[in-house]
């Protein structure tokens, strides 16, 4: 029996005997570790938030190591990637997305300059060897991830140099040779990677041999064959196909002369070509694309697949773009083209669900042209791979690229790819699956965590801070060889890191600890079991939801009591 105290005084802190936790009727707070949208959007599988966290602490090398745990070629991707991470960045509607792309490049360049070692160990002498077809970004990534999985890698490349599309399909104004060579050389120098140049599948080696001699085969051949292009059966006699024109230019430094150029297509190659032709002296360069230009109402499916920055630069340089259109007819004088008839067109939904292209009668118009360049994409060279292709590409069912046991597809050769970063991500995933296959482990699964939308954040806690922009060569000073975009620099890179909202993950801001009216958030000195610094004391938490509402990052969410 509790005995009355004189005057009914109470002893300090005795309210702890009264567990208010049972007042929680419906919901309790939990830490959810949602995926940040940058991470979710990154085809290479980078966790930008994680490496920005290291940068915030001022640990640049650690940030790079964190970055290359997914992507071994940041100096390259930091120059060529269309950075869907920035498009997804929740900060874009506040004061501009983080300049993830530029910081990535800076980190990659820093690693080259400082000779930082990749975070891999040499594989054991008796480690299984994986065969990799193609030394483009996908193949290189796969080789690197083999080392991370304790496997050896043997790369077979048809060309005399490694680099694939990075070397052959991207102008130096975007990706100069020096960082590309340095990064590829550093990677290929890692013990455990063997490279066979000028070794072509179907000619020098066969898939069956490789399957027999290696623990797994990873196919990263890229797309080397231009797709056939004609307009109603007509083909100009002097037809220059886009990618080969670009390769030619990059090998010889010259373009055929033309005054009015029409480029037909909607990818980076098309835009690169437009800009180079313009710079080479063509008076009018027009891009005709079936896709839409970026805008508030543009459906992501409909959006032109070009690095936004590049598109801006192209417009800046005077390239004309006709969107939602196609070349309906070539106007020929003999076998030479003198003009094109353009018609408006849109991708409309069809009964099957796949989009179909519908051109609209009555919108035809004619424009002058003395050169038409199709830039509608390439297909996989079918040599030695015929039985694995479905049309022009591989179409693996698995996100890990598995075509059959021990054989995986990587990169552009997959019908659903199209970026360097995607190829790099494929390399990592394919190796992960292959390693599991080799070791007899269960196949890996995808990270299915929810993505943290901007609506899940509480933006008031973030001080406004404008996005850093790198220096750029002005349009009039641009050449064929000088890199247009400059280095963001250390100061700006570190400042950008501070702008990371840490979407969906704890940034140890103390808000929950500070704002709990019930003192039911406990701060821990060591990391709590869930990796944060905070515990919910459910003995006292009344479930008001204040911590979740005031969590800047959406890391705290209220879930049903029974969950």
């Amino acid at each position: 029996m509790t005995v009355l105290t004189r005057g009914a005084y109470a002893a300090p802190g005795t309210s702890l005997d009264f567990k208010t936790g049972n007042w929680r009727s419906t919901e309790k707070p939990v830490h959810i570790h949602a995926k940040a949208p940058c991470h979710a959007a990154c085809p290479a599988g980078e966790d930008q938030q994680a490496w920005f966290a290291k940068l915030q602490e001022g640990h640049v090398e650690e940030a790079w190591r964190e970055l290359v745990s997914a992507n071994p070629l940041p100096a390259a991707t930091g120059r060529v990637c269309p950075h869907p991470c920035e498009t997804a960045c929740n900060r874009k509607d506040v004061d501009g997305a983080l300049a993830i792309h530029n910081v990535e490049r800076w980190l990659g360049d820093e690693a080259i300059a400082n000779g930082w070692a990749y975070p891999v160990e040499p594989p054991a002498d008796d480690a299984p060897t994986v065969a990799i077809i193609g030394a483009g970004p996908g193949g290189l990534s796969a080789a690197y991830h083999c080392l991370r999985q304790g496997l050896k890698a043997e790369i077979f490349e048809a060309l005399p140099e490694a680099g694939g599309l990075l070397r052959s399909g991207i102008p130096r104004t975007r990706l100069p040779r020096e960082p590309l060579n340095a990064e590829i050389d550093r990677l290929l120098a890692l013990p455990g990677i063997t490279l066979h140049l000028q070794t072509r599948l179907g000619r020098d080696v066969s898939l069956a041999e490789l399957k027999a001699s290696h623990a797994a085969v990873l196919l990263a051949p890229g797309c080397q064959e231009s797709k056939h292009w004609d307009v109603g059966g007509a083909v100009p006699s002097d037809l220059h196909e886009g990618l080969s024109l670009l390769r030619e230019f990059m090998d010889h430094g010259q373009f055929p002369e033309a005054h009015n150029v029409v480029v037909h297509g909607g990818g980076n190659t098309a835009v690169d070509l437009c800009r180079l032709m313009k710079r080479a002296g063509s008076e009018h360069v027009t891009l005709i694309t079936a896709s839409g230009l970026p805008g508030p109402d543009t459906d992501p499916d409909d959006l032109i697949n070009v690095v936004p920055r590049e598109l801006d630069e192209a417009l800046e340089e005077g390239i004309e773009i006709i969107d939602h259109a196609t070349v309906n007819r070539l106007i020929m004088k003999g076998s030479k083209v003198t003009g094109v008839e353009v018609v408006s067109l849109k991708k409309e939904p069809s009964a099957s669900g796949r989009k179909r292209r519908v051109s609209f009668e009555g919108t035809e118009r004619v424009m002058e042209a003395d050169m038409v360049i199709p830039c509608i994409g390439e297909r996989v060279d079918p040599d030695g791979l015929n039985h694995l292709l479905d049309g022009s590409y591989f179409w693996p069912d698995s996100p890990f690229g598995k075509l059959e046991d021990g054989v995986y597809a990587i990169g552009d050769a997959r019908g659903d790819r199209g970026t360097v970063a995607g190829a790099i991500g494929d390399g990592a995933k394919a190796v992960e699956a292959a390693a599991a296959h080799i070791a007899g482990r269960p196949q890996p699964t995808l990270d299915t965590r929810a993505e943290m939308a901007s609506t899940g954040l509480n933006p008031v806690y973030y001080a406004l801070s404008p996005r850093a922009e790198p220096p750029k060569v002005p349009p009039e000073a641009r050449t064929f060889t000088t890199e247009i975009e400059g280095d963001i620099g250390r100061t700006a890179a570190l400042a950008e890191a501070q702008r990371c909202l840490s979407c969906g993950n704890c940034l140890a801001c103390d808000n929950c600890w500070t704002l709990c009216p019930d003192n039911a958030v406990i701060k821990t000195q060591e990391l709590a079991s869930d990796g944060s610094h905070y515990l919910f004391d459910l003995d006292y938490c009344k479930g008001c939801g204040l911590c979740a509402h005031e969590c800047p990052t959406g890391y705290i969410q209220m879930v049903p009591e029974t969950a």
Partner: protein
Amino acid sequence: MQDQARLAELRQKFGREPAAPSEPTAERTPREAQPRFRGLESGHRACQGCGEALAARLVMESAGPDVMVANATGCLEVFTTPWPQSAWRVPWIHSLFENSAAVASGMEAAMKAKGQNTKVLAFGGDGGTYDIGFQALSGMLERYHNILYVCYDNEAYMNTGIQRSSSTPHAATTTTSPAGKERMGKRHLKKDLLSIIAAHHIPYAASASVAYPQDLQRKVRYAMGIDGPTFLVVHSPCPLGWRHASALTIEVARKAVECGLFPLVELERGAVTNIMPIRQVRPVTDYLKLQGRFAHLTRDGDPRAQEERDHLQALADYNINVFGLAGDGDDPVDTSGITTVGRGGPLAGRPQ
């Protein structure tokens, strides 16, 4: 020296500071090892999302263990001390509704008489401060007691079930200022208490809000360092009385500041010495629409609602003009009171 030894003993006993790395911490529970003074402990019986409980907890953390508290009758008193339990870890006394300032005066006189330095705090709600305890408060200030008086302002008599006080904002509904065919909630204005307090020419008087805990705690620490009467009014939303979701307590408090209806200002010897500029001034409707007590003001098509909204907007504009609250983004003080976050906590890792 003696004070230091005593403080050390108190800290040891009540876990005011984190243990140094060399100290053994194994015997302390995580709760005991909290790197802050737990003056107001868990297990109190405040409503979910109670702004007053939060405000009191923040005040106690900054005030520290070497204090004693006189608490007026009200929610805070009732929910913290249902015998035989108490949520307080400092010496604390509740006497009556209207006399916390006077009881505190006596405590302070006792400390003076005995040559002790323990700081005396007096707590009251808006009822106990703006209304019934106003006289005792005025006397306390005039007599220049070394007391920090904290008013937890939730703008009505919440303890008795939401009756209007002189702190209730104009046009807010309470059970004694309901809206109806003839009335649009409270007919009168919120009393400008801070000006009256400041007119006592005391060293320091300030307003604070639970939405800005760092600012609030800075003000408490500042007041604690003053030997003389100081006054702090803390805007403390009441989810029950203001009729908003319990998770929105901070949001509502923040909007009150951002729209200008609850200016955060500091006055020394009656003169305004600091204000917290509003980073982005919001219309009062942003604040009103979150709360059921203003629901009658957000009805479409009611000209009376429009008029009262405009009235409240005019009052907010008045505050903004009088105190110069409209913030300029480039102003270095713009974010001084605003809690912003970065990895590793509010102060860590911010670019200087």
